[in-house]
């Protein structure tokens, strides 16, 4: 898998080296020097949060919430147990960056979590790892054992009177557990059904204790920010989109893979890094931020930069940085049908608009795709979407509706053609 890096999380990581994930390699790359810096220089929690804020780091799981601000919400001075939880439950179709961090550079995450624990006053952390990547979970367990043996985890870390324990929790197949409160429920050994917010995890999180939940990529960027300073991270990107970001590029390109690039890079450049379009085909559509992000026509995307504002201005979201690229042979009805099926499968069933609505969306798109579409079906899809979005406990319903709205908006003629002619406008080929 290609990993192009511009020097933050994957700086110096040779993914072809089978030992690149080990503690010894990490230390050779300067690993654990950020932890050493905060414990030995007497950096305070407030100073670390200030550094995070100046870095411009925004949550890399999809929501893009400023990480420094999130950390500042924790009642640090409050007595009693607090937790730091990492969300490595990466299941948003198109996203596969956190897996590479865990596989090739797990200690960057471990170090980031220790620093997070120190900053928010948590003595215990959990990393919730996506079910389907069991071998990566096992590797992370090995990395934890290395860190513990070397004295980076456990009691009295680096003889600085600071205790921190970190554990891995393995999921077992539920997209919804990527939603932070569903993840907490799952960590407590329950069905992964999201909690009503408020209260937010910072006041009522894991086992009812104050908890901060961050994405893997966000936490793995923390050592760089501490070592080189928040400004150095910010400077890698642009205003309001500080730093570098991992983009998982999939679909019809020559070199699918992860690309760690400065935020603000033109999409055309990212496409070029990924080897351009496979078989020289024309680009038809791009989902720029994981399957929940609205799709954009290829020509619109070619004018965009890969940062939060540029993508938002074009009508979509940077989300998790999963860039799904489709060529001219893709039938957009068929593509949407598959995504709609996914959300229907993965709805946790807790809220009626989502449980029922995702089923209806799929049924209707399925019948359009199979030549049984009816006049009025597009209006019906709109109507159902309006009854789902914003009317449920979590954002899964919205995530199911965004693709439907955007596919039927940008490629409406294909849907209409399907309904009218009972067949596909394009000679569809998946690949």
């Amino acid at each position, binding site marked *: 898998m290609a990993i192009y890096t511009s020097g933050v999380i994957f700086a110096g990581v040779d993914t072809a080296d089978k030992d690149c994930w080990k503690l010894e390699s990490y230390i050779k790359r300067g690993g654990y020097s950020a932890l050493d810096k905060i414990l030995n220089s007497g950096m305070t929690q407030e100073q670390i949060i200030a550094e995070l804020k100046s870095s411009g780091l925004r949550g890399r799981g999809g929501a893009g919430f400023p990480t420094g601000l999130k950390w500042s919400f924790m009642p640090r001075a409050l007595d009693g147990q607090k937790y730091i939880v990492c969300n490595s439950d990466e299941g948003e179709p198109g996203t*596969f960056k956190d897996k590479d961090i865990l596989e090739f550079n797990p200690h960057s995450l471990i170090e980031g979590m220790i620093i997070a624990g120190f900053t928010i006053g948590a003595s215990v952390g959990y990393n919730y790892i996506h079910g*389907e990547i069991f071998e990566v979970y096992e590797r992370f367990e090995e990395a934890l054992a290395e860190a513990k043996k070397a004295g980076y985890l456990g009691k009295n870390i680096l003889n600085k009177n600071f205790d921190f324990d970190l554990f891995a929790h*393995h999921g*077992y197949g539920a997209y919804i557990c990527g939603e932070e409160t569903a993840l907490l429920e799952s960590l407590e*050994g329950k*069905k992964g059904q999201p909690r009503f917010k408020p209260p937010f995890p910072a006041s009522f999180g894991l086992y009812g204790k104050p908890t901060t939940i961050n994405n893997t990529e966000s936490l793995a960027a923390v050592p760089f920010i501490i070592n080189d300073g928040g400004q150095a991270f910010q400077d890698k990107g642009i205003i309001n989109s500080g730093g570098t970001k991992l983009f998982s590029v999939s679909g019809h390109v020559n070199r699918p893979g992860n690309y760690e690039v400065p935020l603000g890079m033109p999409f055309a450049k990212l496409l070029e890094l990924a080897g351009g379009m496979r078989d020289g085909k024309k680009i038809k559509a791009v989902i720029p931020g994981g399957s929940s992000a609205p799709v954009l026509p290829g020509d619109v995307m070619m004018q965009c930069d890969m940062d939060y504002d540029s993508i938002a201005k074009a009508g979509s979201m940077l989300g998790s940085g999963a860039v799904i*690229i489709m060529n001219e042979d893709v039938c957009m009805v068929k593509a949407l049908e598959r995504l709609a099926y996914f959300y229907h499968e993965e709805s946790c069933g807790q809220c009626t608009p989502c449980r029922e609505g995702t089923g209806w969306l799929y049924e209707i798109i399925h019948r359009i795709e199979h030549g049984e579409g009816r006049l009025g079906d597009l209006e019906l899809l709109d109507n159902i979407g309006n009854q789902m979005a914003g009317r449920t406990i979590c954002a899964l319903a919205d995530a199911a509706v965004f693709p439907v709205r955007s596919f039927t908006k940008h490629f409406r003629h294909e849907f209409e053609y399907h309904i009218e002619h009972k067949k596909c406008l394009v000679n569809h080929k998946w690949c």
Partner: protein
Amino acid sequence: MLSQDSLKQIDKELTKYPPEQNRSAIMAALRIAQVEHGWLSNELIKYVANYLNIPPVQALEVATFYSMYNIEPVGKYKLVVCTNLPCALSGGVNAANYLKNKLGINFGETTSDGKYTLKEGECMGVCGDAPVIIVNNHSLCSHMSIEAIEKKLMELQ
């Protein structure tokens, strides 16, 4: 119902969580039990719940909620193919169709010799390596071209 080795693994999982939070270990405990038995019968789910000292219904709801638990018997090899959009754009659907034809079964079915069960998977988080097949939940196989599938099936006897 579980070997000493499995119980030892569960005990290790229990140490990750606060003493009063045994329930947190249920996901791992069910996984370990499934590895030993191949699937989770109601008796096994109850046994695991009792071992963790939690009500059996709490174990059952976890076993039925998460897709990787087998709540009915499966073949010797459970093959899960991702056909979600990013994978479909890089051969996921082709791989699934090839397996259906080759094995003569549809998704959710098991070959008559009890060797293979075929399932349709949702996003496994490895879209860049499509087509992707997971064998028995824990072995993820990437870049599964037709040749790679043939080779894998030869190994899985």
